[in-house]
């Protein structure tokens, strides 16, 4: 049974610009955002049979909806994020309180090292990847690796549109990978290709990458991704997954979609 942390979009809006997607003049519609978020959570609960834990939204913290960035959870350990942008730092105590209340062992990074949680830290059974340069500092992975006892291979993110690893890289439970190769430098591409053999890699076309095809949530054989990504959907089906398209336009205006709106707890 998959457990995911979500946060209702009661206070969601575009309040600042900290990535190329955010524009104050391209404001998200709160009603549409609410409908889209309800649709996403309904699919996750009803179709995918995931258990959702709901955080209490906080006024003044519009991006608290993007729970993937609050930390990384591995077993009963939660490594708390330290956001690069000061705009998101006030979210940290709220995530920390939630983890503590749920009984997680909370780990902090040393002062001065940024880490943006599951947004930049994703993996397979035997190997984990850490995106760096745009948000998370590479040095964070030396610390996180020790906390969670996993091997983490850092990969540099080179395209500002794909500023978190989860915007261009989505490992699937069967060992396949949805990814957008140009978001990585040639070293990162080589490392990823070394770990995931050719037939198991689903390289999404650019027009779907910018619709956040890679920002998908996997629950068992179900994959929930933003609408408008038919090529990715077809490839997922060919691997025996059940893709679910959901409209998430209002969240994409902030640079996030299905994956960003959830944090895997198990």
């Amino acid at each position, binding site marked *: 049974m998959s457990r995911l942390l979500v946060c209702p979009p009661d206070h969601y809006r575009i309040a600042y610009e900290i990535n190329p997607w955010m524009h104050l003049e391209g404001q998200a519609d709160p009603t549409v955002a609410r409908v889209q978020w309800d649709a996403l959570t309904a699919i996750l609960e009803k179709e995918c049979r995931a258990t959702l834990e709901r955080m209490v939204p906080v006024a003044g913290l519009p991006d608290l909806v993007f729970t993937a960035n609050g930390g990384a959870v591995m077993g009963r350990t939660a490594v708390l994020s330290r956001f690069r942008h000061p705009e998101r730092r006030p979210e940290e105590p709220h995530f920390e309180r939630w983890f503590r209340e749920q009984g997680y062992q909370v780990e902090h990074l040393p002062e001065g090292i940024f880490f943006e949680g599951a947004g930049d830290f994703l993996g397979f059974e035997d190997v984990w990847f850490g995106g760096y340069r745009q948000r998370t*500092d*590479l040095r964070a992975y*030396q610390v996180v690796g020790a906390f969670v006892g996993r091997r983490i291979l*850092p990969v*540099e993110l080179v395209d500002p549109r794909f500023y978190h690893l989860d915007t261009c890289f989505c490992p699937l439970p069967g060992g396949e990978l949805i990814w957008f190769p140009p978001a990585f430098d040639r*070293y990162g591409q080589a490392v990823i290709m070394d770990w995931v053999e050719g037939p198991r890699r689903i390289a999404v076309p650019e027009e779907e990458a910018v619709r956040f095809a890679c920002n998908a949530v996997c629950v068992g054989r179900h994959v929930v991704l933003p609408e408008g990504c038919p090529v990715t959907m077809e490839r997922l089906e060919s691997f025996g997954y059940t893709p679910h398209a959901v409209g998430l336009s209002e969240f994409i205006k902030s640079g996030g979609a299905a994956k960003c709106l959830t944090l895997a707890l198990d």
Partner: protein
Amino acid sequence: MVYETVVLHGHIIDSLLLPKVLDVILQSGGTFELADIRIGKTREEPSFARIVVRADPPDRLARIIAELQSHGATVEKEADCRWLPAPADGVFPEEFYATTNLPTEVRLRGRWVPVAGIEMDLGVRIDPGEHGAMTVPMAEVRTGDRIVVGREGVRVAPLERPAQLDVFGFMESQVSSERPHGHTIAGVARRMEALRDGGGKVLFAGGPAIIHGGGRESLAWLIESGFIHVLFCGNALAVHDMEAHLYGTSLGFSLTGGPGSRHGHEHHLRTINRIRAIGSIEEAVRSGVITTGVMAACVRRQVTVVMAGTIRDDGPLPGVITDSVQAQAAMRAALPGVGLALLVASTLHAVATGNLLPASVPTVCVDISPASPIKLADRGSLQAIGLVMDAASFLRELARELGWKE
């Protein structure tokens, strides 16, 4: 060239981070040296690399370091060096830092300061204002001198390859009697020409086998022609050189052929006595008693001569320093400006000179037995090129290479 040491750890091999960082250094116009690398033995075990990054000018290095930091490299933690007062005259504090012959810096109040007078096996003394540091031999340390202890805040630079790729471009201490010598000797000659024309100094340390073996004329020619500026030797080289002038023998044997001279074994004693009576080698040359050979050439060309005595010396000649600590100090004082050292046919003087030379001075050790250059290398003079050959043949070939006509 300025440098900084950075460390990388984590899964730097399988994430290709190490090759990437090295590529970044090269593409940004720097160079690197992998000072230390430890590769994790299991998949979970992280690896570690310590990288010395060099670049000029300093702001380019700073840009490279900033770029490397974004790839997870951290600048090695630096601390000032530690010092303790010398507890007594001639005694270093326990755990004193013992020097190598490589360029060395110490960190004083946050600044890296080069250590002056680099020489192996000494201590490092910090000036009272903590602005400078220089090497100090054990015998010369005075109570209360600030002597560097431990290794923290001390860094040693490996030798940089010279831009000019002559025979010294690939300095190596391999010693073999089975390598052709011609190319090396020609390379030495070219350097001697360059040093003479550029005002640099050539140091020659030699033993009496040069005289016995027939190298006297060629060595004297090299000195007369201005190719040698400092001579280190013992009593014997000078004695037999002047014996050759006065008697035509070396240790009693005629240099031109024939059997041993009658009472020839006395020649060198009579030579010593003669010079002692005159008062000095300089005076013997000036007064016309000695007019040919190595010592005469040295006096005429005002070569700096340091003669160091040993316990088996006869006489000795006036000018031979019989206190070995004083002899060391006199040799040390003659080193500034030396750009090439030729250590020929004397294990004792070769090793003594090798100990005093910084590794940056190209050094050639010539001996009929490989033991001498091997000993030199084993004692840390890794820059020395060994030539296993007869001293006189070496000198004749070198002199011919520089224009000597027999």
